[in-house]
């Protein structure tokens, strides 16, 4: 990669190592759910910076708009009303790619270089290499990638890799009016989160905590949750996300083994032929048939 800040650490469908000689700073985006007011400025900023314009759509009677992530909406606010401690709570979670350290999408992708992970931790889709198979959707534990109906390519949040590459914070971070979205090194974000969590615990949210799920090796988008013991409350945020065992089996050791087994069958057949020789009709049987023919001729 031309930019040092975009050194590629992992590349889809590639069996040799990517850039390893240096480690750039690992970055993270921290979304403090407790400070979010649901204004959707982040959604607008995302659309603006990335030049994507989703359809305006219709009102569904709820605040969510659009109702789901799409190839043109890489982040959406998800609004949930829950009752906790006998109080109504309005939970708002900014959904989008979590930029997993162990990305299921990248693991599942069959197209070399269609999905990359930079050494700073960002997982990025390179649509020019994408073949539109949707395996990234199959691999993702967070249901994030979307296949465009227009070009059959997969899209999702890039964490504004183009901005981060030149030392700028992602567009959503810039636009957030309450400071609910923070950006910096992963270490700094964890420190910042610890302060927020302490503050929330002091204010009566005993279960407040950081969401940085270790099942996917940690994420480069983290949440501060008031109810970190129940992530599911936040529009189905998975409690213990990990790459599905089915995907791990599908993309793990089984394939090299199967490839070797097939090579074994092919080579085994070749050497069987070379060592045992062809299975020809025996001279004996041929002679028998000829004799019968002759006898029949003679009888006439």
């Amino acid at each position, binding site marked *: 990669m031309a930019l040092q800040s975009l050194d590629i650490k992992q590349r889809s469908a590639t069996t040799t190592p990517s850039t390893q000689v240096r480690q750039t700073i690992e970055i993270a985006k921290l979304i403090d759910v407790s400070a979010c007011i649901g204004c959707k400025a982040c959604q607008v900023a995302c659309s603006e910076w990335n030049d994507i314009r989703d359809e305006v759509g219709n009102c569904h009677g709820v605040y969510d708009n659009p109702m789901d992530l799409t190839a043109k909406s890489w982040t959406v606010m998800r609004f949930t009303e829950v009752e906790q401690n006998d109080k109504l709570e309005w939970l708002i979670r900014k959904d989008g790619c979590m930029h997993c350290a162990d990305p299921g999408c990248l693991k599942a992708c069959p197209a070399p270089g269609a999905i990359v992970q930079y050494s700073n931790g960002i997982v990025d889709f390179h649509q020019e290499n994408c073949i539109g198979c949707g395996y990234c959707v199959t691999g993702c534990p967070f249901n994030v990638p979307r296949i465009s109906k227009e070009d059959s390519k997969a899209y999702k949040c890039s964490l504004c890799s183009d901005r981060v590459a030149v030392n700028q914070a992602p567009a959503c971070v810039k636009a957030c009016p309450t400071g609910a979205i923070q950006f910096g090194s992963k270490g700094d974000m964890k420190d910042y989160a610890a302060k927020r969590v302490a503050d929330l615990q002091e204010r009566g949210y005993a279960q407040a905590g950081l969401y940085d799920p270790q099942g996917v090796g940690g994420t480069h988008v983290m949440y501060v949750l008031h109810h970190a013991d129940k992530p599911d409350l936040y529009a189905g945020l998975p409690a213990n996300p990990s790459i599905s065992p089915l995907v791990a089996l599908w993309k793990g050791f089984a394939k090299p083994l199967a490839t070797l087994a097939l090579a074994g069958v092919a080579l085994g057949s070749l050497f069987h032929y070379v060592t045992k020789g*062809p299975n020809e009709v025996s001279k004996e049987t041929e002679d028998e048939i000829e004799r019968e023919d002759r006898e029949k001729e003679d009888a006439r």
Partner: protein
Amino acid sequence: MIRDPKDLKRYEPAERANHWVVGISFILLALSGLAFFHPAFYPLTQLFGGPVWTRILHPYLGVLMALSFAALSFRFWHLNKMTPADKAWLGRVGEMVSGDDHNMPEQGKYNGGQKVLFWALIGCMSLIAVSGLLIWRAWFGFDITLVRLGAVVHAAAAAVMIGLIMVHVYAAIWVKGTIRAMWYGTVTRAWAKQHHRGWYRQVTGK
């Protein structure tokens, strides 16, 4: 083409044509499928006009193969019922493989090995067809767990099927005088008498 009027007819033209449609679609499917199976095979996508075309074409070829395979198995299933003689044959398959077929039990149109292959292929093809629909995102959007299961089953059953077909093709190359049955439908009487004596008796009345 009649090489020798005394040759025995093993396959009708329609059966041969059906087999070739299955065979051609299988080869195209194996090549395009392997391209997505492991990165080592990804260059095979160039045979199909590039990776995106490979992704687009593979499932349609799959539909062609599933349908033509179903037709072929419908033609042959009644000839592939297992009998005690088949089991006896399978019990001594080691002798056959080591190149000594003198003591093998008498076999009908198909031997025990061919019948096992027939049913194994039907199993693989069914799994591949159903799982293929589950992961065909251009047309379908199934529940994610089903899609994940489909992806595993599709890859596993296809790998087994490719292995079985390798054995099928090798057996035809190994047993001399077999491949012509696929081309023009006939085999020599000597071939039939040696390899499928029961069938030989049945068609010649001897």
